[in-house]
């Protein structure tokens, strides 16, 4: 039984002849989980074993029927999925055991993985920053090319991402951005119009990252970091927008 056959065969026993096959499948997946968890070296041994048991249980009890699990049609994709599930389970354990701090929402550009208080965590953080740089330097232009056939919308998309990044890093406020656009174009721009423009750009980025992941063009953890970059843009832009609103509400 191959790994991906085993992965899709998993399920709880129901007293039928299929139970033997399911048990065999669980044994195959267990071996791979035990191998994968060793890649997550920054987590301690006991926690690693707990995570393996927990992930296998969750896969047996319904987890392997999700859409993302069903999409795993090769051993390689199953391995990626298992790694991701183990990483998630270990982070969950750490959070529950208070060994991870929640991210500080005030810290800009801080990578998603940087909550781990360890040298390994710092190394991961550096890697994450490199991925973020790659995201803006390479992924965004490629997304523009893949999404838009016309030059004008392509340029608008790139500009929208640049605007969101400036909002996200608080280099500019929404009101300042609107004033800047009005000055450049000679036309005022409503906040709602700006928000919709940014929403469309984020949707394009999200779709592009999903395609990269689906087609196996990037590793799962890199895709997750790219998604975190999109999230970073959205959250900060939204926060700035909220701040602008809150300020207006405070006006007499």
């Amino acid at each position, binding site marked *: 039984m191959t790994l991906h056959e085993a992965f899709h065969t998993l*399920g*709880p026993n*129901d007293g039928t002849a299929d139970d033997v096959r399911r048990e065999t499948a669980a044994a195959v997946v267990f071996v791979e989980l035990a191998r994968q968890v060793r890649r997550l070296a920054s987590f301690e041994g006991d926690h690693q074993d707990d995570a393996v048991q927990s992930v296998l249980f969750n896969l047996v009890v319904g987890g392997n029927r999700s859409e993302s699990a069903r999409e795993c049609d090769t051993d390689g994709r199953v391995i990626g999925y298992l790694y991701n599930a183990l990483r998630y389970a270990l982070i969950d354990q750490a959070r529950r055991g208070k060994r991870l701090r929640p991210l500080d929402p005030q810290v800009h550009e801080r990578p998603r993985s940087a909550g781990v208080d360890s040298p390994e965590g710092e190394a991961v953080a550096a890697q994450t920053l490199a991925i973020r740089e790659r995201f803006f330097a390479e992924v965004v232009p490629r997304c523009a090319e893949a*999404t838009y056939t*016309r030059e004008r919308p392509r340029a608008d998309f790139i500009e929208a991402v640049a605007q969101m990044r400036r909002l996200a890093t608080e280099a500019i406020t929404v009101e300042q951005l609107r004033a800047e656009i009005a000055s450049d174009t000679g036309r005022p721009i409503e906040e709602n119009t700006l928000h919709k423009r940014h929403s469309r750009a984020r949707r394009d980025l999200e779709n592009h990252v999903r395609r990269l992941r689906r087609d196996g063009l990037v590793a799962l953890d890199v895709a997750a970091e790219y998604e975190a970059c999109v*999230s970073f843009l959205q959250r900060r832009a939204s926060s700035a927008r909220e701040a602008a609103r809150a300020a207006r509400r405070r006006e007499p």
Partner: protein
Amino acid sequence: MTNITAHEALDRLGFEGLTVASAAEFQWSATDQSHALGAGDLTALAFSALAAGGFVGVPFADVRDAALGRLGAAVSSSATRVVRVEAPPDVPLHVQLPDGLPDDDVAYVPEEDPGTAYLDLSRVSAVVVRAGADTVLLRASPGGLVVNGLERSTSVLAPLQATPDLAAWTGACRDPWVVEQVDPLVSSGDAWSRVVAAGMLARLQMPASGAQAREWLAGFREGRVDESVAGPRKWARALGAADRAAIEAQALAESAALRLDIEDAADDVHADAEGWPDLVREVAHRRDDLEGVLVLLDAAGVDGPLRTALARLDREGQLLRLSLPADIDRDDERLRRAGLKDPDAWWSLAA
């Protein structure tokens, strides 16, 4: 006649759960001649060329019908088959296109006016457009534009011929959290709630510790049957065709309604607004309800349009997740479990 029925179109767009409430048909505009673009035939110009020019000078004829609700619409000629739709002021416009073509090739939204969209119905079989409470399906026909007003389904799942034996399954369940969640639904007379409860039992159970997981898996390897997780699956497998179809139809209706609610939540990300975080949590729980039902339908061998509908819904959900402010309260046991069952589940709301 269009080449595709309303039902087929909604299926393709992942909106099969919406109900067709009204219909109207309009003729394409009679003129191809644009004074602004010169006396040439507009058919010579591709959609992309017209979009590059912002559709300036392209003749459109306004159309009106109750089926459109508050949406404004105008049609071009039968040669170009472009429809312009407009949302009322301050109401976000949503356009859902079929997969397969870059949006840019078949839809144009002016940068300066995101409440307006130009849609190339010569290249896409159907489009769903929504602004606020008004949702319409647009299709092209040789004679013109077919508009169907769409509504959320109000149907309620009728009592099933085979009711799930929730009491027996919760009796065998060793996960107190799941029992606590399911108990109120056991006494519910609502057939859908009972199906959702069966799905929660089938999918959401978790060991309290690594030791408990080890013990459960050891029993599993020895061939032990845990009725609390096997029972719902066996019940689903034994369902008759009518019950299966009824559950799937209800799940599709819920999926379509949920997708609209997710769009609404994502339209106005506003974490400090009263009720917004609760709205996000509610849609996340409803999505998880559907995942449990999906596990049951999967066990029953049903592999129909629900997965397509959920795949489309999840794209909207993923955008909603990405828009959550970093400091929003994510402490929710159900959603934590959803993430552990599927690390890619947007509705786990994981940071």
